[in-house]
């Protein structure tokens, strides 16, 4: 589908006008940035406001993490499963959105130096992969209920 802008009279594509002619990967990434971004507006802002406004940073304890995630070796409630799913979706979208954002910035400043660009992105993707794996694994396992945290 195409539309014509009022002043220039030029016809532009309705969808993806900016990435026309780019590779399939770049077009997919362009769309991913838009849709993951729109999802993250709701996911990340609700998360931020819940933890920082309703609860407050100074009230957050390890006992709260255990209450939200469920403790390892204990039965998981439906609420805790929903919270884990919420965090897992947010983690995947946020890390993907973040890596692609960094990739675009890195390409702008290091794109003319392919070796430096590849080394930088290799480091970024490796670090992101390790941190995401830790995060997803933690959500699958649940929190460790340390005795001192539970007796507070």
């Amino acid at each position: 589908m195409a539309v014509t802008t009022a002043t220039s009279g030029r016809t532009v594509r309705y969808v993806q006008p900016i990435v026309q002619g780019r590779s399939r990967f770049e077009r997919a990434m362009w769309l991913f940035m838009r849709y993951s971004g729109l999802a993250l507006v709701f996911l990340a802002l609700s998360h931020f406001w819940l933890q920082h406004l309703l609860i407050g940073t100074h009230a957050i304890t390890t006992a709260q993490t255990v209450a939200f995630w469920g403790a390892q070796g204990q039965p998981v409630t439906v609420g805790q499963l929903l919270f884990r799913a919420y965090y897992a979706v947010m983690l995947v979208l946020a890390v993907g959105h973040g890596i692609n954002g960094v990739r675009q910035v890195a390409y702008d400043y290091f794109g003319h130096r392919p070796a430096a660009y590849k080394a930088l992105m290799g480091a970024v993707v490796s670090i992101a992969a390790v941190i995401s794996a830790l995060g997803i694994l933690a959500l699958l396992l649940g929190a460790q209920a340390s005795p001192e945290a539970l007796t507070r």
Partner: protein
Amino acid sequence: MLNPLLITVRESLRYRGRESHWMWLLHRVSGLGIVVFLGLHIFGMSMSAFNPALHERMLEAYKTPLFAVGELVLAALLIFHAVNGTRIAILELRPQLWEKQQVATRWALIITFALAMPTILVMAWKSVSHFVSGQ
């Protein structure tokens, strides 16, 4: 010869693209700021499953005055990035609206301010009362 990084920073500030350029620059800077915290945050939270003592230490670090200020900056960056990102997504998916870029920019700033101001004030109030009363 100038350092390439210095040139990048200088030209980014000098380029006269007005509002749209400043929004692009702020979007980039806020995104990079958020992604650094994101990595730290996911790592710290994941430690609740592997190393509760380290998890606890990271939660305590968030309660220091340094992070109390950092948290206010994070709120501003996150809200700006969310609102401005919504503006970008809507405009790029709807070329009919390209005639109204400056109106959209102004509204993005107004909405950012309207959401960030109360958030920052409440968080600052919570932090100050915590440090004063010690609770």
